[in-house]
Every structure is written in C-alpha cells, then in structure tokens.
C-alpha cells in the first residue's frame, strides 16, 4: 500500500513540478523579455479560443488520471482483504486500547507479525480520533457510536509511529504510540508470553453472551425467541419492514445497542436495548463472538490460529 501511495505521490509531484516550471518560466521569461522599454508599446491581444480550450481540456484530462489512480488506491484501502486478522481498537481521550482476536490487550502499542493482513475495527468512547500510521500510509477517523475499519499489511519488521490525527482535546498530541512489526516467530513468542490475555476475544464474548442472558433467547436451534445467530454474519438479513441489510459489524453493534432499529423479519421486537449497559470492550467481544459463529470461508480470522494469510486476495470485500 505504502508503495502505491508513494508512486502516486511522486507522479503528482512530478506533474505539478512540471506545471510549476512551465508557469514560472513563462512568467519570468515574459517579465524579462517584455519589460517596459521606451517607445515600445504593449501589443493588445484579445484572447484565443483554441488556447482557452486547450488549457481547460488538457488539465481536465490530467486531473482525471489523478482522480482515477487515487480512487483505485482508496478503494483497496477501504476494502480489507478476506481472512485478515482482526484487531479491535477503542480510542478514548487520550489513549488507544487495542485488543487482538486472540485476546491480547494492549495500550498505545500494537504488535503484529510481518506480512499478515490486519483489519482494524475501531470505535471511540468519547470524541472523534483518528488512527494514523504514517509508515503504512493509512489513516481512518475513529468515531463514537459506530465502527469504522481500515487495514494494512506490514512488510518490514520494525517499530512505527502511531498517531492520533484528529484533534481530540488537551492531550491530542500525546495520544501516540507505536506499531511493532515482528517476524512471525517472534510474534508467536510474544503471543505466548507477552501481553496480558484472558482468553480470546471471541471466548470472552461467549462468556458475556451467557452472562448477559443473550443465550436465553439466541439459541442454537430455532426455538429461541431471537434469531439463531449461527452462520448469519456477513450474509444479508431480511428485515421486518422489507428491507435487506448486510450483517456487518455495525449492524451487529446496532442490533445489540438499539435492537428495534432494524428488526429481523419474523421476530418480535422483544430484545432489550443494551445501550449504556455494555462497555465498548464488551461490545467488541460480543461482536467478535457473534462473528466467530460464522466462520468465513477463506482464512480463519476469528480463531486463535495464526495461519499465515498467504496469497493476498484482493478480491471482493468482506462486508
């Protein structure tokens, strides 16, 4: 990704520099060549339609290239590859809380293995923040009340800056950390010994699922009062009002916090709203658990296994 962005950036710089050189040379040359001389009067030139058209259409053509290239990169930046490992990010004034699917929790630090696609599922507890790793050329605002996502794949081990790029109050400039990219073996070791873990995110979610009483309604058969949640994630859901929505992270999130917002067809809106009753971390665990009930076909993002992602599937998006 970084390479692509840099290539485009260099392209833009070169084209712009050429334009600058063109304009500046003309200005300087004209200014020198046609400076005021005694007895020489300016020649009145009305304009020229062909020239006007040239210098409107040509830039427009160049602009289109800029746009198309930029759009293409943006599209892949916003489309995490299938099978990416997931990390949940919660921003708050003024720290980053990160939780791996495997259950490692970190603050202001993110450890990832080299060469693996990492998808970040992010939300904020208070104001808007922005997750920015300059080295990876990625940035995404982190909003309260919903998830935003982005992804990256580190190609070189090392420690990289992590910044908060959206102004968020007093310690905005202190809301920084680092992304530590490690060789896979090292990473395994870190997983084993390093960060404090209390079981994988999904298994935490499972515990919560029982504890909060979700399991009483959402059973793994068709007898529950709520829909069976197995195998539903990432698929379209038919709603009571006839609309169809994709079951993605934001949908699950909303379904837990405000269940009546989108009611599944064939069910009564009896699910209690959990808004204000679960923390962002608990919510993430629940989401991770519900996702784990629908193992994706490619890769095993939600299990604890650290399968290398192998070929980079730049194919269709996950959600």
């Amino acid at each position, binding site marked *: 990704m970084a390479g692509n962005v840099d290539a485009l950036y260099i392209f833009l710089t070169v084209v712009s520099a050429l334009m600058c050189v063109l304009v500046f040379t003309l200005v300087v040359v004209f200014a020198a060549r046609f400076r005021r001389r005694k007895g020489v009067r300016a020649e009145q030139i009305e304009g020229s339609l062909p020239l006007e058209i040239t210098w409107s259409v040509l830039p427009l053509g160049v602009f289109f290239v800029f746009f198309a290239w930029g759009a293409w990169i943006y599209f892949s930046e*916003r489309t995490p590859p299938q099978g990416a490992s997931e990390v949940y990010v919660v921003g708050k004034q003024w720290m980053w809380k990160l939780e791996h699917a495997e259950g490692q929790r970190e603050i202001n630090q993110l450890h990832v293995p080299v060469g693996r696609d990492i998808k970040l599922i992010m939300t904020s507890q208070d104001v808007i923040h922005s997750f920015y790793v300059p080295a990876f050329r990625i940035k995404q605002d982190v909003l309260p009340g919903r998830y935003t996502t982005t992804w990256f794949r580190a190609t070189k081990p090392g420690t990289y800056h992590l910044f908060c790029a959206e102004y968020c109050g007093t310690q905005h400039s202190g809301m920084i950390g680092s992304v530590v990219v490690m060789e896979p073996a090292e990473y395994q070791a870190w997983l084993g010994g390093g960060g404090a873990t209390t079981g994988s995110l999904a298994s935490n979610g499972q515990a919560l699922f029982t504890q909060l009483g979700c399991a009483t309604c959402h059973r793994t058969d068709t007898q529950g009062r709520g829909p069976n949640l197995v195998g539903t994630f990432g698929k379209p859901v038919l709603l009571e009002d006839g609309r169809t*929505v*994709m079951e*993605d992270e*934001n949908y699950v999130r909303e379904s837990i916090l405000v269940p009546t917002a989108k009611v599944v067809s064939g069910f009564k809106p009896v699910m209690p709203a959990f808004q204000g009753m679960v923390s962002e971390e608990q919510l993430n665990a629940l989401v991770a658990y519900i996702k784990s009930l629908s193992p994706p076909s490619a890769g095993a993002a939600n299990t604890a296994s650290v399968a290398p992602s192998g070929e980079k599937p730049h194919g269709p*998006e996950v959600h």
Partner: protein
Amino acid sequence: MSDTSEHISSPKLYVAIWLLLMVCTALTVGAAFIDLGPLNTIVALGIATLKAVVVVLYFMHVKYTHERMTKAVVVSGFFFLLLLLALSMMDYTTRGLG
C-alpha cells in the same frame, strides 16, 4: 420589479388564490390519512410545493415581474438548497454499501 409596482392584482384574484391554498391544505391533510405507500411523502411534499409556487407567483408577484433577475434569484435559492440536500443524502444513502 418596476412592473410589480405598476401591476395591481385585484382582490378577487387574491381571494381565489387563498381559496386554492385552503383547498390544498385540506387535500394534504386528507391525503395523509389514505395509505399510498411511499407515495404519501411525495404527495405531501408535492402539494406543499404547489402551494409554495402559488404563493411565490401570485402573492409575491413573481408572475408579473418582467425582471428576469427576481426569477433567477428564486430559482437559484432553491437550486442550492437542493444541492445541499442531495449531496448530503448521497453520503447517507450509500453508507452501508461500502
């Protein structure tokens, strides 16, 4: 606009317009109670727009002005309002898709 001042609409016309507006009000209330599916909103806004246009044309004398500028001003006002609404909604209606 110079013509607005010269053109004198008769009270009869005003009363007729007023009646039309009252009928439209009755219609819109009535229509609200009939199930037209998604058309309900459209009908309600359509009637409102009709009323607004009538007010602009007759009560506000735009119909009688020979001044193209007034018309241009009114139209551009609504045009930019629509731009605001349409381009914002473009974001909201496509959020779930990408």
